[in-house]
């Protein structure tokens, strides 16, 4: 058995995307770099259309008009790699992650578990579940890595220096001297290479031959479950979340089962285009591990709740675990003895008594339109900034009013509704004034140019 295997995963993010959205597999799909606008990963259909990795995105559009594109996120890819490592860690003890698209597996350490190299590789392959991958073994970690990244090569000596991790200037230097393959370098005296071309090359060859370690740091499982799915398009409602959430929850079930654990709290987070989060906690009175149960509870939560913004990424996270057999001891505990009820608990009680619609918080938003400036937010959201003092502290839903009953006491203030919030071409204009009603109360009223009517939107006197 070779001591090292390297698992090369060149399209991890794209694979994950297609796994979450099987319909995408039939279309040309690419991931691109937001900074360079170049294609980073491409699926089979895209390749068939002539799209290649490294191609400008604009060229890719020309080759496939119905191309689906997604931003490549190295951090997300790294996270997917860590997820995979968590999974493999159940079977292979020594794993070392390589940036965001590969990992080493030290087979030597697994000799007692697997009868042969083949058996070990089969076990490894079985965990990959449809991911684009190339697994190669080698006498050293570097040899295995190089072979996996150039699958057409039989031995490290065949490998083109351009495909190595050597620095770009050094690779160019080697090429311009006709030193095209690792074999060329291996045939040369290392002292000569060192004095001519420097330490980097000598170290590279020493690592390739196992004379110097590669300095890998081995993977340690995090102890939490955290998996994400990129959504194929912006999702506005529960329906769009169903399939990817189910996949993630199945992953959670597998994770819990393999560890003989349960949880009482699953945290589901949605990220929108601006990476703003909307978090939903699914709490359970008893420990649970089944995906179907999680799913049903999540569905109940989401059907009650509107998404605050269209979601692009879905994350499922579990931080607390308990043993599968253990009974939930906290059931017998009571909060009645606690004198100072925490805010969250108080809000829960209020919501239960008065109904959800009656309890909300207030926040000051961006913009100039009153209803945009003063927003209703879930209760408990901290107030980060304060609105202009002269405006009404509480806004009403605008209600029509008769101007005849009002006496205007301020100069008009003209506000135009943000035109990008609607598709009409005409501007919607409101002229606000402070006015006194027949009871002497000061109200904030406006004339709406579109409907040619007056509305009241708030009171300035308590």
């Amino acid at each position: 058995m070779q001591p090292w295997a390297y698992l090369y995963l060149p399209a991890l993010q794209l694979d994950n995307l297609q796994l979450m959205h099987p319909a995408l597999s039939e279309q040309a799909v690419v991931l691109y770099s937001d900074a360079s606008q170049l294609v980073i990963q491409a699926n089979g259909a895209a390749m068939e259309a002539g799209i290649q990795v490294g191609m400008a995105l604009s060229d890719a559009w020309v080759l496939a008009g119905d191309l689906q594109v997604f931003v490549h996120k190295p951090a997300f890819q790294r996270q997917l790699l860590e997820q995979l490592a968590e999974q493999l860690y159940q079977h292979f003890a020594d794993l070392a992650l390589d940036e965001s698209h590969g990992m080493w597996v030290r087979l030597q350490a697994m000799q007692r578990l697997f009868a042969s190299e083949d058996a070990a590789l089969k076990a490894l392959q079985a965990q990959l579940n449809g991911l684009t991958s190339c697994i190669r073994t080698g006498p050293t970690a570097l040899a295995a890595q190089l072979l996996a990244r150039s699958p057409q090569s039989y031995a490290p000596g065949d490998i083109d220096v351009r495909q190595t991790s050597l620095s770009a200037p050094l690779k160019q230097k080697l090429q311009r001297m006709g030193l095209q393959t690792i074999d060329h370098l291996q045939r040369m005296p290392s002292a000569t290479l060192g004095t001519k071309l420097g330490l980097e090359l000598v170290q590279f060859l020493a690592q390739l031959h196992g004379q110097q370690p590669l300095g890998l740091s081995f993977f340690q499982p995090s102890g939490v479950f955290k998996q994400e799915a990129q959504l194929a398009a912006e999702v506005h409602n529960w329906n769009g979340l169903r399939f990817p959430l189910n996949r993630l929850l199945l992953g959670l079930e597998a994770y819990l089962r393999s560890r003989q654990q349960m949880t009482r709290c699953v945290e589901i987070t949605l990220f929108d285009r601006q990476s703003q989060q909307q978090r939903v906690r699914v709490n359970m009175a008893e420990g649970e591990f089944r995906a179907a149960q999680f799913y049903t509870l999540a569905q109940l939560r989401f059907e009650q709740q509107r998404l605050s913004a269209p979601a692009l990424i879905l994350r499922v996270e579990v931080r607390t675990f308990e043993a599968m057999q253990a009974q939930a001891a906290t059931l017998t505990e009571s909060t009645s003895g606690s004198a100072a009820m925490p805010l969250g608990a108080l809000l829960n009680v209020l919501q239960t008594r008065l109904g959800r619609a009656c309890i909300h918080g207030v926040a000051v938003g961006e913009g100039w339109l009153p209803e945009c400036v003063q927003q209703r937010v879930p209760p408990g959201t901290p107030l980060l900034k304060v609105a202009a003092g002269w405006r009404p502290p509480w806004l009403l839903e605008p209600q029509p009013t008769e101007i005849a009953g009002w006496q205007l006491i301020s100069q008009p203030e003209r506000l135009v509704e943000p035109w990008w919030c609607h598709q009409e071409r005409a501007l919607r204009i409101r002229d606000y004034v402070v006015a006194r009603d027949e009871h002497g109360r000061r109200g904030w009223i406006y004339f709406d140019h579109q409907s040619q009517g007056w509305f009241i939107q708030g009171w300035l006197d308590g």
Partner: protein
Amino acid sequence: MGFAELHCLSNFSFLRSASAAEELVEQAIAYEYEALAITDECSLAGVVKGWKAARGSGLKFIIGSEFHCPEHGCFVLLSRGQQGYRQLSAFISTCRGKSRKGEYDFAVTDLEQATLDDCLLLWRPASSLKGAPVAAHALKLKFKQRFWLLAERGLHGHDGESARQLGVISQQLDCPVVASNGACMHSMERLPLYHVLSAIRQHQPVSQIQSQLAVNGEQRLRSRSETEQLYPAAWIEQSLYIAEQCTFDLGTLRYEYPAEVVPSGKTPQGYLGELAAAGLQRRYPKGAPEAVAEQLQRELDLVAEMEYAHFFLTIYDIIDFAAQQRILFQGRGSAANSVLCYCLGITAVNPAQSDLLFERFISKERNEPPDIDVDFEHERREEVIQYIYHKYGRERAALTATVITYRLRSALRDVGKALGFPQAQLSQLLARLDRRDSEEDWHQQLQALGLLKHPMGQHLLDLTEQIRGFPRHLSQHVGGFVIASERLSDLVPVENASMPDRTVIQWDKNDIETLKLLKVDVLALGMLTALRKGFQLVEQHYGKALHIRTLPQEDPAVYAMLQKADAVGLFQVESRAQMNMLPRLKPKTFYDLVVQIAIVRPGPIQGDMVHPYLRRRDGLEPVEYPNDEVKAVLQRTLGVPIFQEQVIKLAMVAAGFSGGEADQLRRAMATWKSSGQMLEFKKRIVEGMRERGYEEEFALRLFAQICGFGEYGFPESHAASFANLAYASAWLKCHYPGPFYVGLLNSLPMGFYSAAQIVQDARRHGIAVDAVCINQSSWDHQLEAGSYRETIRLGLRLVKGLNKQAAQTILQQRPVTGFTSLAQVEATQVAGTELEALASAGALTSLAGHRYQARWDLTRIGQQLPLLATAEEASAYELSAPDAMSNMHEDYAAVGMTLGDHPIALLHKEGRLKNCKKSTDLPSLRHGQLVTVTGLVVGRQRPSTSSGVTFVTLEDETGNVNVVIWQETGRRQRQQWLHARLLEVKGTLEKHGEIIHVVAGRLTDKSTLLASTPVKSRDFH
């Protein structure tokens, strides 16, 4: 009550105003204002357009400018009389001169110090000021009764507070208040665009910068009744009082020519007459033909009448300097091809040789300044520019501005970003917009792409349409100088250009034309450099002194060469489209060459005029004219309109356009893609022509042609000047090919072809080419003209990664007998990377055996390795020599060409290309035969005039193969050809006379046969 708006920004306050000066003027006229001031921020860039729009309307147009100071607020200076205008212009120039391009530096103390006694000052205090600061008292003291406070009501919640504050300051300063709307829009409907411009300025989407956006659209021109409702009558009356004081009219601005071009004691006209007479004698030593002499006299009379003698003398002064410095030049433009310019030496186009209408050279009816552009050698134009600066001083000479405006793509991109469209989505839209239709049917195209389904789709379409044509920033014109008799900044503000030591005025060429200022175009042309270098080589090697004006004319050998499309490297006729036309048009005279150059242009092609011309030329179609008027216009081109001025003349004689309308048409043609004005003319042309008995189809074709001329307007006079250089370059290539190629190679980059393609053409013409060699080459390519054959020794300038300074160091230290070892080369102390570049170029082969070894030997020790350093001697190692394929790759990588086997020849030798025809095989094959050709892709062209066709040029070891890919074939097999470096084409051979091309059927990308890219395709869209 009347009203005068005195603080108003046009879109020349870049990204701060959502209306053009013309729109603001139009609205002010509609509202029956007494006056409107355009007061762009530290700029007068928009005033000429505004003044022109207001001319004759009864609206008084006032010129002013605003200046911001965060501490004190906004100051508006208005010019009262001509003196005030000059003071304002000088003040703007001073503020601009202190800052880099596009910015200005202003402090309140500048207003105190500058001479502004004929300007009025309006001040809108910063909202943070609760009383009049010390600086305001100082200004009041200086400006006295010429100082006002500006009141601008935005219908904000704080309006009342602002008015109170203004009242306090007014009392403290004893200074009247004047009402203004501070307009940045002519109408409230522009509010979305105003928001988008703010977002573009801040590089953020509108939804992200809401707190910084205008909450309403009140920064606009308001009707008089609205204004009366918002301001006290006294404040409005002040606006009228101020307007009454401002009497300056831009039309009275007098430009004075520089005086020093006329020797003392002579009149400009008299001196011009003397020079012209001397020139006539020089041009026609045996006596000028009577017609030419008469023409000269007519031109001189016209020049005297229009008082343009100074203009011609200024140009003469510049070209006289160039002639003394032996810098080649050539004049062009409507006035350049006159007998006068021929006699003054401005142009070498012999009026006796062509049949140009010289009366046109100054448009008397249009009352416009004459137009002469002078091209100089591109490597030596800077000498001419420095001469102008030296002679007139930097205060009196500056470059004209070019206004960079929003075009469709830039508009879509910027508006899209401002609306929050992701970059990738915008890239997709732009990538899928068909480039050729993009300026016309883009609305439909974007709708077809489903844009309207997007919630912001309609806004994107509307706002893109609105922003198109908006100025984005000022840039410098390529070479248009304005020279004044006194300080230029008294005439127009001058600001810094991005290039060091260059200044640019705030007006563009249209403004200059409107105000009839004199502009001298000093342009750069690579071909003139190539010709001068070629002529020098002829003199050096063959002892013959040549000059463009003395070349033998109408040489049949030259035309025979052109008719065979042997035109690589020739001026203007070297493109593939021109080469295709040469054997069809078969130029036999200079005028044929003029037509040849003008006919392969978007105008005649879109107007479908090419084939009728060719058929008539071949006698296959009768030459007929509907009447004598049309005959007079079209006779020289066999009844087919080819030149820009012909179609305009035709609009007059055939569609009944007046002189003024034709002039409008000419202007609209130049800008129609950005302004979309042309469609107004379509109806008038078609109806006018139908009324006069022309067929609608011909009228539509003529209109298509007019649109085609658009930005590529190509008048006959330009074509004639270009034809002169085309002839000169052809003559040199025909008679002295060695000097021609070396001159051309030493002038690169220029023209259509790479050094590799030019060298191949030279070798096909029997010229030997020797490789770069450390002991034989100079920096430039050299001609070695032996008795047997001419040889080009490639120069070190070809070596990629070797700079000129390093090369000079090596050449200076090169022993007379040459270097004998690498150690000697290393002793020159030139950087290792430069020597490595030489090694890879094969320049050291004579010292080291082969390039790999040379590079290895020259590679200096990397890091010190104490553990390994004791080992064997490093340099003793011998590397294997490169094989033919590797050598070829290294040649391309190091010098961009190979003198060894062509890549295709190598692949043939290795048996990797089967059944492929070579370029030289094609002439012997029959028309319609199925062929397979393979070659390096050296060019992809998708001309705007062809209906979806892509032209690909393949290069093999024997020459080029022209491949035509029809739209459908191209679309289906795009992946094969779009990025292919080596392409196999199976297709049908098409032969029409000497024109041969392969119409592609099946395309196969064979790039993998090449390990890396040897040659980069030159793609033109």
